[in-house]
């Protein structure tokens, strides 16, 4: 029977084409909107995650108390051990070490004496090990204004505005002056391999990014760092998962009362991101609901069109002695087929488009004065798990309901009238 139905659907393009297109289009739009909203709304959360909070973060208890001051002296030590524990216990999470620090950047003149100097906020990440994925995470290729990413030790990135302020040119040798983890003075030289722009004036005023190996050397932080960030494999903050992770880790370390004992915190515990996450969940929920509602209306129509188109055919079948219930069921089976194939096509198209927009982004910076990382001119979708199934709900349900409603007409029709109708054909 199913084969028979499929044959009919495939051969009768009128019967299947429009509803299929409508279902697919509607499903595609639903998927696209879901990923879009997740992408755009999740953007600032995501940016926070990548830039500073991680999905979860391991720090010391003392560090937690004055985190806004990024106190390097309260850093984690024995990080190799902590890392291997994290990697063993939570292998699905990517763990990366970061050092946030502050200091002075000093540009020498030709005689080697200070020409200009300015304070900066430094971020040390593991660039050289490409497995860490840090360069991608920080979108460094995109925010690079001039030059190139550091390729080896001693190379750093400086925020563009800061570089301009100090008069730093590419490949200039600059000196970092700061304090080590133990409070000692540290001075080291670096080559500016490129300039970057976050687009957040607070960061662009004075930022330096360097490889963590360089920072460790400079800050006397062998086997230490102030933050270990954990990222889920999907590039999306999952609050439940983060909470679970945090509880588990902190339970394991409950006994350790040392102020330098590691403790895990979540993204939502930092930068007041909790409210943002709640809002986003709410908005995604509401919009998805609205979309499913809207799509159901659309597809109900499609179902009706499909049903009505085949008024004559149904009449004939009834006239030939097919049972009403059987005709009804077969129509529903057909609509189910259309619903499923439409949803598959639509979801595939929606996901493909979303994927494209996730990878390439939609560049709307032309519509803005100046794009930033906080408010990127390039908008991206984010494919979440729900994107894979969300389109099927309205896609199948609505088609089904539409057909069921339009099919009720079959029961209403008097067999006697059928012959008259047939006569007319």
């Amino acid at each position, binding site marked *: 029977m199913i084969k028979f139905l499929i044959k009919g659907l495939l051969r009768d393009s009128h019967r299947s084409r429009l509803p299929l297109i409508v279902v697919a289009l509607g499903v595609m739009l639903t998927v696209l909107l879901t990923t879009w909203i997740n992408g755009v709304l999740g953007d600032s959360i995501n940016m926070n995650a990548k830039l500073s909070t991680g999905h979860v973060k391991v720090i010391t208890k*003392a560090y937690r108390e004055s985190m806004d001051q990024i106190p390097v*002296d*309260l850093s984690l030590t024995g990080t190799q051990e902590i890392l291997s524990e994290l990697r063993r216990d939570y292998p699905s999470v990517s763990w990366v070490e970061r050092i946030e620090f502050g200091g*002075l950047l*000093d540009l*020498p003149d030709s005689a*080697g*004496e*200070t020409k200009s*100097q300015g*304070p900066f906020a430094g971020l040390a990440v593991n660039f050289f090990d490409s497995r860490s994925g840090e360069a991608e995470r920080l979108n460094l290729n995109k925010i690079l204004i001039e030059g190139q990413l550091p390729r080896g030790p001693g190379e750093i990135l400086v925020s563009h505005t800061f570089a301009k302020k100090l008069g730093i040119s590419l490949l200039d040798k600059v*000196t970092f*002056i700061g*304090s*080590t*983890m*133990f*409070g*000692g*003075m*540290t*001075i*080291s*030289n670096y080559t500016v391999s490129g300039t970057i722009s976050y687009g957040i004036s607070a960061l662009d005023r004075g930022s330096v990014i360097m490889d963590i190996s360089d920072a460790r050397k400079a800050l*006397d932080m062998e086997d230490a760092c102030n933050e270990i960030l954990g990222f889920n494999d999907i590039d999306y903050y999952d609050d439940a998962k983060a909470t679970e992770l945090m509880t588990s880790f902190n339970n394991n370390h409950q006994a350790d009362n040392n*102020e*330098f004992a590691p403790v895990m915190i979540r993204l939502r515990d930092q930068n007041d991101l909790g409210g943002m996450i709640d809002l986003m969940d709410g908005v995604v929920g509401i919009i998805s609901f609205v979309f499913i509602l809207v799509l159901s209306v659309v597809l109900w129509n499609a179902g009706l069109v499909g049903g009505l188109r085949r008024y004559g055919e149904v009449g004939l079948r009834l006239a030939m002695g097919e049972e009403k219930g059987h005709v009804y069921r077969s129509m529903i089976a057909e609509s189910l087929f259309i619903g499923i194939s439409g949803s598959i096509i639509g979801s595939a198209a929606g996901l493909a488009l979303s994927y494209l927009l996730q990878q390439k982004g939609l560049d709307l910076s032309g519509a803005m004065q100046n794009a930033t990382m906080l408010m990127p001119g390039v908008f991206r979708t984010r494919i979440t798990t729900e994107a894979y199934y969300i389109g099927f709900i309205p896609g199948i349900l609505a088609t089904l309901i539409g057909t069921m409603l339009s099919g009720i007409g079959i029961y209403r029709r008097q067999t006697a009238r059928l012959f008259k109708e047939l006569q007319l054909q």
Partner: protein
Amino acid sequence: MRTFLTLITIFLMVPLFSQPSGKEILNLIDKNLSAKTQIMTVKMVISGARGSRTIEFKSWAEGEEKAFTEYTNPAREKGTKMLKLEDKLWIFSPSTDRIIQITGQMLRQSVMGSDLSYEDMMEDPGLSSHYNASVTGSDTLQNRKCWILQLNAVNKGEAYEVRKLWVDQERSIPLKEELFGKSGKLLKRTQLYNITRIQGRWYPMKVVYKDMLKTGDGTQFIIESIKLDEIIPATIFSKASLK
């Protein structure tokens, strides 16, 4: 570092005699420590959140305004040199081969994690010329009788408006100093221990310096060796010697 410099200045100022006139006591302290130059090896013990660290350095000083320091230990700091000439401060780091002048924001940072900031180091500590002294009482410190001396700045622009010194009546050497803000808030405290006879003068071989606004145990300076009135070649106090 700065403590060390302050210390030296104090020594230079503190006269030996005990006489209950502020000016006289200042002169006595001065006399006691009137060496033109000092060359010393110092061990600095810094207590911090992560326990204490020891840093060793050798320093050359001439008068109030010239000082040169070279760090010798630990390995990380070895070869780092600082030069102070009047109100300017330069640092040389061997690994970078750079001479950097410490200005602006950096001045408020702590030196090597100690209770001293570079700002503190920049102070010009000429006590007798910059402060009016008066004896306000006596006290017993380290089992020794002390005059309590109050110093009030003569001119505006001194880092500390008021200083209080506890001066050993017999040896004319301060055992404690407290630095106050204009409004009378205690900012820093220096305690001097192990007063030892060196080349006919009394010298504290251990000084504990504490920033009173911060928590912590303060920073200890332990003088391991000291030579006074040696002739120091002028080239030491030049930027050329940093490299």
